[in-house]
């Protein structure tokens, strides 16, 4: 066994260094900037305990969000790997190519891979897994309504067809939901996950939403896993996870309260905070007054101090957002947003006909499922007040409000939304959220220029070219003041005496072969 003391994980994500952007929260940064690899010697064949934030509520069903748990625990793997750079990389498939008929892609499978129970990874097995996934009553976001159909192409390849040409199909097959399970897994509903994955860890015991036990997969095709076993405890309460870590009940804890991460400094801690591909935005209803007026929207944008929201209101748990896409992705804005300008906000409001005699009164809605949203709403209300806008906060259930939002019956609504929808490509989000025909266009924004900008995405396969479109689209949204992107959520995690631990902003990886405990 290669006892490398500071083994780098095989597919380490580009870790975000936001120090320059966030000088004010120096304390947080001091904790997350360094000591990424632990200090002591790697302990071979150790047992590791993780306090995980998300519990598998759907019985580890691969078509649900539980797939992220499986993927993070190193149980399942996908055909393609991908990261925040939007590039597809080999995983269970070693190569892929769009066929002359652009609706079909052919994936060459990695030879010699077996499932943890010994079944071989064949074209037949992969096609079966993908077709089962596409056949569930509510297919996951990544492959929803694309008409995915897979067929074996000999023993070592698989052909995947969609109803329309799909330029990002390889990226879609990097979604955690498309993890490949052995054919025998599908004898039950939801599919059985014990011994049916291909990943470095085999799930040996699943104890509901309480815990899971995993053992090293000795037949793993890649680098030999350092850990002999992993125990995952699902602890939904953030404060409780922090306590578990400080008490030594866990070696790694995900998503700690931000004030708690300050506790875990020093050489024995790996304390990481990365920007996640998620933006909390203030949606402004353009289908009616007052936000049909560009000047009023710009006034709101100018009134809000986004830097203060991220660093103070949310105590550094979020990155101030300059635009829709943030530093989590390569095409996102790396620059901080412009500072607030209440004077300009007042002036714009005056031009639009609002002033001290005729103040602008609006309702600011949001929901409480994400605890940061009411906090943001409270801080935004105060900032708007300073600019002469009276916003009345209304917190309620999102599902109940959604029909109103989609029908354009609201003023301002604060939402938190992932802009990647499980695939490191923003095309789907831009289409559904901002195009005229978009199914989720809460802002009620409709610009033919914008739609024309998105047109090439239908066929462009080159990541660089696509990302250039994303940049232009995002800039156009800023120009037209389509809502106000407030902050980008951050993901954090702390490891105690571990090596090879990184926080994946896309929430796909955690237990990797290089993860180890140190002495």
């Amino acid at each position: 066994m290669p006892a490398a003391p500071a083994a780098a994980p095989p597919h380490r994500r580009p870790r975000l260094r936001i120090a320059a952007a966030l000088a004010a929260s120096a304390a947080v940064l001091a904790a997350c900037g360094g000591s990424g690899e632990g200090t002591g010697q790697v302990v071979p064949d150790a047992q590791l305990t993780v306090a995980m934030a998300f519990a598998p509520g759907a019985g580890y069903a691969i078509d649900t969000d539980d797939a992220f748990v499986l993927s993070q625990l190193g149980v399942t793997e996908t055909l393609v790997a991908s990261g925040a750079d939007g590039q597809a990389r080999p995983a269970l498939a070693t190569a892929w190519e769009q066929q002359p008929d652009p609706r079909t892609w052919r994936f060459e499978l990695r030879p010699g891979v077996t499932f943890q129970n010994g079944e071989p990874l064949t074209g037949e097995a992969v096609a079966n897994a993908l077709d089962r996934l596409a056949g569930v009553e509510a297919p996951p976001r990544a492959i929803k309504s694309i008409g995915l159909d897979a067929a074996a192409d000999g023993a070592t390849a698989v052909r995947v067809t969609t109803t329309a040409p799909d330029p990002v199909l390889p990226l879609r097959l990097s979604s955690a939901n498309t993890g490949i399970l052995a054919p025998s897994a599908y004898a039950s509903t939801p599919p059985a996950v014990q011994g049916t994955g291909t990943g470095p860890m085999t799930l040996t015991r699943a104890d509901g939403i309480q815990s899971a036990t995993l053992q090293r997969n000795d037949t793993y095709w890649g680098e030999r896993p350092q850990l002999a076993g992993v125990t995952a405890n699902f602890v939904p309460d953030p404060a409780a996870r922090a306590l578990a870590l400080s008490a030594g009940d866990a070696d790694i804890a995900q998503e700690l309260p931000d004030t708690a991460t300050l506790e875990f400094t020093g050489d024995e801690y790996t304390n990481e905070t990365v920007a996640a591909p998620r933006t909390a935005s203030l949606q402004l209803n353009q289908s009616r007054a007052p936000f049909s007026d560009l000047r009023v929207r710009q006034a709101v944008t100018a009134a809000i101090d986004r830097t203060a929201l991220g660093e103070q209101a949310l105590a550094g748990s979020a990155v101030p957002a300059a635009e829709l896409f943030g530093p989590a992705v390569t095409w996102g804005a790396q620059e901080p947003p412009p500072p607030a300008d209440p004077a300009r906000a007042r002036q714009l409001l005056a031009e639009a006909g609002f002033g001290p005699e005729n103040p602008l009164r609006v309702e600011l809605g949001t929901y409480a499922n994400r605890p940061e949203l009411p906090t943001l709403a409270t801080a935004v209300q105060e900032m708007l007040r300073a600019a002469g806008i009276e916003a009345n906060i209304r917190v309620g259930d999102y599902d109940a409000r959604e029909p109103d939002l989609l029908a354009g019956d609201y003023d301002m609504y604060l939402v938190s939304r992932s802009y990647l929808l499980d695939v490191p490509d923003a095309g789907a989000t831009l289409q559904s959220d901002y195009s005229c025909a978009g199914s989720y266009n809460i802002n009620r924004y409709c610009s033919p220029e914008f739609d024309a900008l998105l047109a090439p995405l239908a066929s462009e396969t080159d990541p660089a070219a696509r990302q250039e479109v994303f940049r232009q689209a995002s800039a156009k949204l800023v120009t037209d003041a389509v809502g106000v992107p407030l902050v980008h959520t951050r993901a954090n995690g702390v490891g105690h005496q571990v090596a090879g631990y990184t926080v994946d902003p896309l929430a796909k990886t955690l237990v990797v072969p290089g993860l180890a405990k140190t002495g």
Partner: protein
Amino acid sequence: MTALLLRRLLALPLVVVAAAVLVFLLPRFSGQDTALAVLRSRTGEADPDPAVLAALRERFGLDGSWWDQFTAWAGAVLTGDLGVSYTARTPVSGLLWPALGVSLTLTVAALVVAGLVGIPAGVHAARRPGGRLDRALTAGSVLGVAVPEFVLGTVLVLTFAVTVPVLPATGWGSPAQAVLPVVTLAAFPAALAAQLVRAETIDVLGRVHVTVARSKGLPDRVVLWRHGGRLALTSVTSLSGLFLGGLLGGSVVVEVLFSVPGVGRLLYDAVLGQDLPVVQAGLLVVIVLAALAGIAAELLALALDPVARSAVR
């Protein structure tokens, strides 16, 4: 005694039917789309696709009338089939029974702790009403009644897991992990038992047969425990029946606070995810158990108290 038992047992089906109707109807008063909620609990932020929602509704039988839905569900429950969870897609019984086991363990442990602390405290306080010990114990019990589980639990965590980290604050499985949840849950019944036992014992000590026993020269301690203690126990027993039911549900806070995988947390998650089969079956089982516990406690109290027993006859 037998007549009472019969009466109570005959009333039980009534309780069950009423509870069944209640737990079935209440969640359905919502204007909420169960299919959408289920979809969102499987995959967060899923855009509602009308075709998918319709398919889900059909498979869950949500498109039929309430009466059809109720008879179908009630019929299945009568044959022991609690249905299949919407989110987990596994039989409800597989989720419910283990969770119930955890909750019962937690609750019974809390009740035992409460009894072991509360009853002696009450009896000792009653020996000299107004004495120093009585004052201290009464103050403690008043505080115990006024401090809710979520405050006590948080304070205990703050003290024994943050400030002086000696106990784990989460999880379930090891005895150490059980300490904080059990103590949190036991405080209220212990305080109430202490108050009750104190009042009862003082009352009993004034009764004739106790005075007789005393005059026969029995030592105070013996009189206190043999007569006072035993009579006081009856009221505590009947109270514990109510507690068992109350604690089963009341442990929701404790289970959520300490990440204990009990029936309270199961129900909490199920309600938030609109997992109706789990909500219905879970509530029904808890209510029936609570009713049974009430009957058992009542009978036990009768068995312990000869005076009340003759009164019932």
